[in-house]
C-alpha cells in the first residue's frame, strides 16, 4: 500500500489557517541549546524539523493538528519561558476535523 509523506497526509485534512499569527511560538535560536529536541520526533504532524545545513530548528504552525504534545515534551513551551508560547488558534482557525 502506498506510503504517504506528511504533506500528502495533511493535504487530506481541512484547515482554515491563520498564516500570519502563529498560535505556537518558539525561539529557534534559543532552541539550539536544547538537549533532546523531542519536538522533532514527537510531533505527529512533523511541524518541527532540525535543519542540519544551518543547524537550526524550523517550525511551521500551519498544518498543526493542535494535539498539544509539543507543549508537554518541551519544557520551555510548557513553562512559557520568554520567546516560547503555546495557545489554541482563535476565531475557529486551524484544523477542522471532518471525521474526528
Amino acid at each position: 500500500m502506498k506510503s504517504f509523506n506528511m504533506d500528502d497526509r495533511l493535504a487530506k485534512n481541512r484547515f482554515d489557517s491563520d498564516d500570519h499569527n502563529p498560535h505556537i511560538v518558539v525561539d529557534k535560536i534559543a532552541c539550539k541549546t536544547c538537549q533532546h529536541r523531542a519536538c522533532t520526533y514527537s510531533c505527529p504532524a512533523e511541524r518541527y524539523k532540525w535543519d542540519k545545513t544551518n543547524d537550526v530548528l524550523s517550525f511551521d504552525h500551519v498544518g498543526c493538528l493542535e494535539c498539544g504534545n509539543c507543549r508537554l515534551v518541551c519544557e520551555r513551551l510548557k513553562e512559557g519561558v520568554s520567546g516560547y508560547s503555546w495557545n489554541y488558534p482563535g476565531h475557529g482557525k486551524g484544523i477542522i476535523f471532518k471525521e474526528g
Partner: protein
Amino acid sequence: MSEEKFQVVVIGGGLAGLAAAYKLAKAGREVLVVERGKAPGAKNMTGGRLYAYALNELMPGEWGDAPLEREVTREIMMMMTPETGIAIDSSFGSMNKLSYTVLRAKLDAWLAAKAEEAGAMLVPASTVDGLIIRDGKVCGVKIGDEELEADLVISAEGVNALVAERAGLIKPVDVTNVAVGVKHVYKLSEALINERFNTVSGKGAAMLCVGECTKGVSGGAFLYTNKDSLSLGLVVDSESWKKSKLPLADIAEEFKQHPAIIRYIEGGELMEYSAHLIPEGGIKALPELYRDGFLLAGDAAGLVVNSGFTVRGMDYAILSGIAAAETANEAIEAGNYSAATLKSYETKLRQRVLQDLQTFKSAHDYMVHTPHVFTTYPRLAAELMQNIYRVEGAPAKRITGIAAQTIKGKMPYFDVFKDMIKGAGSL
C-alpha cells in the same frame, strides 16, 4: 451586574460540555456553550468507541438518531512482532448494543443540535482566553476583549485545559500522565468492510494491538470499523515516546504496512490524519474538580481509564457532564455557588467514574513500567505459536516442552512471574 449574565457558561462543546448544556437547558436554565472550533466536533478526535449506557443516561430512549457508526460485536486483541500477529478474536452473537464506533465530527454536531433544540445557546469559533475571577470566585469568561458573566462556569475544555491552568485552578497536566494518539481514517465501502471483517452492516469490530506497532514503546494500536470507513492509529505514552527518540509520524505510517493490518485497509482512501492527547494519569493525577463558581468535567478533569483491554473516556465525559449539570441545578436553586455547595459534584462522580479511576489506579504505571508487555511477550507468543504448529519430521514434543524451549534463555521465569502478579493487581 451585566444584563447579559448567564446562569451557566460552559467552556468547550465536546461530549462533557454538551451533555452538561443539554441537561441544563432541559431544566430550563440559561446556558451558553463557548466552542473554539468552527462547529462542535471540529477540534475533537477519538479512536474510537463509545459505551452506549452513557448516552442512554443523558437522554433515555431519545438517542435513536445518534450518528453511531457500527455496534461492536467482535473484539480482537493482537500481539505483534515484525512479521507476525497473534490474536484473540472474540465474535459475539449479540452484545446488546453495548458499544458503538463513532466519529466525533458527526457525533458532537448531533449532540450540539440536541442541546440547542433543548434551549442551550452555542457560540462556535470562539476561544475562551481567561476567566473573570472576583474574590476567588469564578464569575465568567473572557473572549478577546469581551467579558461574559455567569453564576457558574463549567470547564469542559479538554485535555489541554489552558484556561483552568492559567487561572491557577488546576496543576498543569504533566507529560508523564498523557498519551498521544494519531489516527488515519480510510474510506472503504460498507460491503468491503463487511466482507473483510466477516460482519454485517450495522455491526463491526474493534481491534487493539500491542508490540511491534509501537516498536515496543508503552502503548498500542487500534483499528475500528465505522460504517464506510476504518479508524486506524496508535496511542503511545508521551514520556516513553520522548525517551524512545523514534519518529512518531513515520512509525504511525509504517504500522499500516504490517501484514496483519494491511489486508484490512488495502485499497482504502485516506480521508483524514488527526492527532490528540489522552489524559491517562488517572486518580493519582486528578485535579481539583470544583472551586467557587467553577466545575471541571471530561478530559479537562482527566476522567479516562485505560485498563489495557478497554479504553474509556467519552462515557465518563458524558457522565461528568450530567453530574456537573445536576450540581449546577442544585447551586442555582440554593442561590449559592461556593465550593462548599459544589462539593456534591465530587460525591456524584465518586459513585462511578472516580470509583473506576480508583480501581485502575495502577494500570497506567504498570503499562509504563512493564516493558516486556510491549516487547518480549509478543515475541515469545509468536515464537510459541510457530513452534506449536511446526511439523518438520523431527521428534515431536508435548506442549510444555515446546513452551519451555521457546522461553528458555529469553528471560528469567521470575520476571514473567513478577509481571503476571503485578498485572493481576493492576489491570
